[in-house]
């Protein structure tokens, strides 16, 4: 049975909802409305214990009722009461792992450990240089700041070269790849590869070379001096630093 999906507000959820924590908020209709009194701070009428969401319904029940809260309340009400998208459908076994419980923070067995590990490591992913991608300032803006005449960043470290490819004149990590016998060259992003295997896999896919035919081709590259060399003859880092463009040639004999 297909899901009833439309472009309207979300219909019944993908997984069965047993109880939903929001219901412990109590009656949505009592939520404070904005009202015409623009000078008051309706949101701030909630007291100091506000940050504990379990307490919110206590405060709400003492405030005047209004209709504007009803919209949200009605939606959430129906959310809970709505039938599953197909009551007769057999719920696959895997869904049992993902049922809502009373406590949204109730982690299943292991994930909490995994999560903590990952979240702490996520924060210092950049090898101690700070958060990756934070603050959300675009690359070329980072470069501006290193030229501040006075009072700016004291360390003159260069903008992090994202991919470890040093010494490239242009900031692009794309190189041309040609295949022998194919007139049109392609381009490949070197920054996403870290080994010959990965690179070769991508190239094979790009040129539609089947696994069986892989052995026919050899990867060569042209270095800065203009010489053509076999890629696998040098270590990866040397290859990355000195290559200008790539060519797949048919190996002879």
């Amino acid at each position, binding site marked *: 049975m297909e*899901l009833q*999906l439309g472009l309207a507000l*979300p*219909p019944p*959820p*993908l*997984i069965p909802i047993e109880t939903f924590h929001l219901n412990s908020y109590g009656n949505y209709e009592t939520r404070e409305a*904005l009202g015409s009194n*623009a000078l008051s*701070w309706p*949101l*701030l009428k909630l007291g100091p214990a*506000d940050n504990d*969401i379990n307490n919110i319904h206590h405060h709400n029940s003492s405030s005047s009722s209004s209709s504007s*809260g009803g919209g*949200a309340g009605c*939606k959430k009400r129906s*959310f809970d009461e709505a039938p599953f998208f197909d009551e007769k459908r057999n719920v696959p076994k*895997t869904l049992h792992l*993902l049922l809502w419980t009373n406590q*949204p*923070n109730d982690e299943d*067995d292991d*994930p909490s450990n*995994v*999560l903590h590990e*990952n*979240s702490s490591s*996520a*924060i210092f992913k950049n090898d101690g240089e*700070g*958060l*990756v*991608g*934070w*603050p*959300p*300032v675009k*690359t070329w*803006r*980072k470069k*501006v*700041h290193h*030229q*501040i005449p006075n*009072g700016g*960043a004291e360390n003159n470290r260069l903008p992090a070269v*994202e*991919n470890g490819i040093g010494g490239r004149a*242009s*900031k*692009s990590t*794309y190189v041309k790849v040609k295949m022998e016998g194919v007139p049109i060259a392609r*381009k490949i*992003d070197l*920054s*996403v*590869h870290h080994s010959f295997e*990965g690179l070769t*896999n991508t190239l094979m896919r790009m040129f539609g070379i089947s696994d069986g035919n892989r052995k026919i081709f050899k990867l060569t590259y042209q270095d800065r001096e203009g010489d053509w060399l076999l890629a696998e003859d040098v270590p990866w880092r040397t290859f990355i630093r000195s290559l200008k463009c790539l060519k797949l040639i048919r190996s002879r004999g």
Partner: protein
Amino acid sequence: MVCKSWYEIERWCRRKVFVGNCYAVSPKMVIRRFPEFRSIELKGKPHFADFNLIRLKRMVVTDESLELIAKSFKNFKVLVLSSCEGFSTDGLAVIAASCKNLKELDLRDCEVDDLSAHWLSHFPETYTSLVSLNISCLGSDEASFSALERLVGRCTNLKTLQLNRAVPLDKIANILRHAPQLVEFGTGTYTADVRPDVYSDLAGVFSSCKELKSLSGFWDVVPDYLPAIYPVCSKLTSLNLSYATIQSPDLIKLVSHCPNLQRLLVLDYIEDSGLEVLASSCKDLQELRVFPSDPFGAEPNVSLTEQGLVAVSLGCPKLQSVLYFCRRMSNEALVTIARNRPNFTRFRLCIIEPKTADYLTLEPLDVGFGAIVQYCKDLKRLSLSGLLTDRVFEYIGTYAKKLEMLSVAFAGDSDLGLHHVLSGCESLRKLEIRDCPFGDKALLANAAKLETMRSLWMSSCAVSFAACKLLGQKMPRLNVEVIDERGPPDSRPENCPVDKLYIYRSIAGPRFDMPPFVWTMDEDSGLRL
């Protein structure tokens, strides 16, 4: 859905096509549907990709593609590439040489392989149709100024010209002399040895630009040369000084000359004092963006606080769009801003240090942002920062009914937060989340919502691989992409959170140009793995 006649009429008449997510539809489909289109705007990467969160390049436009465009569409008029990469000036050369009717070439925020500036010479001598050229992203060291000058000289309809940093200050006068009709101009580097002749040349040529409404560029500004633009300041409606590393006094002087300013982009060197002057001088201000001069510094290097934003919000009655980087904020300031400026449509606040609390009360900023969504009923875009609990998402879900795009980082306590947003924000199109404790429950409970949105990005959250598989399986009209550089997600336990998740609706099916660390969860994923 419309009736067939309308569909056909629209199809044959549509000249402009905008594709907000290039993977949502295939080129074949666009071409088939709109055979007469003359202008196409393509967007690729999810917004968070701008900030090094992924190495994956999602919108690669190769030189070959540009060549294909050039050769296939002889009458091509407008090419706007937004945040794209993968092409070089070679590709641009082919466009220049082939597209005789090209009116607009806009490479905003692109990363272009700058092989040579001589691509400009590929515009034939007979080519005169250029109306808009934005090459501000190009780097090239060698620049073909004479080709540029000649191009500008013969394109008498040129209205927008945004140069790149490589164009030196003393060349600008020559270029502007050829184009006094310009409406938008972006300088190159705005630095030179201070010489009176260069200065007076520059000031003179700016004086002759009677139509100039917008200025940008200003890399490496030498303050002595700034007064050269005073002749045009009174007419300026847009000023982009976000690369201008000049201090507050110079910025204040400049801004005081621009009473008709509607749009200002500036570095935080402007400081609170400068923003106060802005608030009193520029009553027509609609959009303000304040960028950090030292985003990675631990301590503030300038005196820019929430006070500056409050001043502008109070003083500028038409202010509706703000992007503001600062280091401290208070609920009180946010509530004041919200109450006084309910006409905000875009409110993006970035408090530089994650999880920074209200500096006055040490509380979360839930109530402050809550006020923003409560008072600003037409809010379409919101970016949150600072210390935030699930509470702020409850406010957002309750009040932000017109919200189309929401950016969240280091916020929330549980799935409840995400649930509030997905179930409450009726107009939501794009949601991007990083480093929040949102997991499977809220996502799966609101799976259908995802089909009503353009895309959802989640990185460093708590969504498990199992949930991703389930989504991919159950929602055939969504592309569920797991991005994880640790290796295949099935090499780890199913309940292990994925690193990055990008979900978008698509009628083109899964894409096939992914690098090795992106996996599409499709209908088979449940069976296969």
